[in-house]
């Protein structure tokens, strides 16, 4: 597999910080090229951490941090990385960043890190991150890579946050641990056990993909 899948643009004069081309790096993964719903990557964690919004939010932040940082690092050293061991180098950098994030969570957000437990560590195997490094950061400049990282990170984040919103609302009757149904006087509103189990996430994810593809007219080739 070659690393030059994305053509290196020849920049002649200084490009504006947020040119049209660069804006696309951020906006594309949010919708048309979403890592979860279009590329169908990172499903494992999307199912596992979305029972409640709070851990999902922390997970999103962790993934965005890891993907942006690793994109930046890989992109900065892309010219000195030996091609034959590039995957190992990418993996080593992702793994180190994930361990860093895990350590910080354990120190400052112990309750949430207990909830996320093994899934923070599993960010290492999140295909979205390695996919971006291999497909983008290896062939593009650091600043563009950062933008691309934010794009993919947010694309991942908004999907899992949406899934978590519905799962927490119907599975536990709350939003960010705030009991919504009790607050509006429906204390007896039945919670749905299906939503609390990973199958619920599958269904919501399926619905999101359905709605999105109907709107975009995207067809699997």
């Amino acid at each position, binding site marked *: 597999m070659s690393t030059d899948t994305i053509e290196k643009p020849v920049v002649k004069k200084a490009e504006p910080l947020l040119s049209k081309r660069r804006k696309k790096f951020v906006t594309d993964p949010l919708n048309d090229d979403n890592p979860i719903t279009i590329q169908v990557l990172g499903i494992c964690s999307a199912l596992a951490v979305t*029972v409640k919004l709070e851990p999902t939010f922390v997970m999103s932040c962790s993934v965005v941090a890891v993907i942006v940082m690793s994109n930046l690092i890989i992109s900065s050293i892309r010219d*000195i*990385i*030996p*091609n*034959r*061991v590039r995957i*190992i*180098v990418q993996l*080593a*950098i992702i793994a*180190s960043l994930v*361990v*860093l994030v895990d*350590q*910080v969570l*354990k*120190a*400052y957000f*112990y*309750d949430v890190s*207990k909830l996320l*437990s093994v899934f923070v560590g599993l960010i290492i195997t999140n295909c979205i991150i390695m996919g971006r490094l291999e497909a983008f950061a290896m062939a593009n400049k650091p600043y563009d890579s950062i933008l691309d990282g934010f794009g993919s990170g947010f694309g991942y984040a908004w999907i899992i946050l949406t899934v978590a919103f519905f799962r927490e609302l119907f*599975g536990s009757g709350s939003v960010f641990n705030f009991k919504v149904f009790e607050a509006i006087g429906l204390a007896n509103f039945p919670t749905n*056990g299906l939503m*609390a*189990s990973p199958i619920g996430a599958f269904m919501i994810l399926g619905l999101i993909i359905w709605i999105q593809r109907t709107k975009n007219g995207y067809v699997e080739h």
Partner: protein
Amino acid sequence: MRRSNLYIIAFSAIMTIVLGGLLSITAVGLKPMQQKAIRLDTRKQILGAVMQLTGKEDVLTLYDLRTKSLVVTATGEVVKTDKDGNPLVAEEVNVGKEYKKPVEERLLPVFQFMSESDPNQIEAYILPVYGNGLWNKIWGFVALETDLNTIKGFSMDHKAETPGLGARITSKDIQNRYVGKKLFDDQGNLVSVEMLKGERGDPSLFNEHQVDGMSGATLTAKGVNKMLKNYMDYYRPFFKRISSGEELTSIQ
């Protein structure tokens, strides 16, 4: 571009050293904060067995004010020092690690919850319990009234029980089912409190040694039953010494 093997080896070696160094520095640097977080979490769980924490109070101060702890063995003797002669702190005894040892060698922490008005008056005994759920470990803290028979509170947590089913042991409405239940019968035999199969929803259906089950989580409930009974059995010699008013002898 093809690079020489030497370059690749050198690159990998330098990368390993840089990343390894970075990780060790962070691990060492964040250790005090992490230990503080763990200490706080243990104390929250212990206090959670006897009171409803709102999350606003200063747990560490409250804990120091209201609890006195000791470590006992399964024969009821108080242990003051560990194998190397260092003083033993009950809060730092890792119940999960002790669980792997044979019962006679286990260290069993006891947390005494003191009365707010009289700091020498014990209000409840809080005892850690540990066992296997359906998928992985479960653990908790049982708070007993001073008669060492009536359950005052039970906080439980788990590693990987099924969300919405077995994981419900962490919810207050399941834990509150244990409040007021008795461990021993009139003859003083350990009956423990059993969580039944199925969920009927009517508390009046159960006697003082039974609680309502969790629908769809019978195997987790079995784990909870076993854990509670086992640990109450281990603490039994200690209970006997307390209730007979015997001086607690300590071994080194």
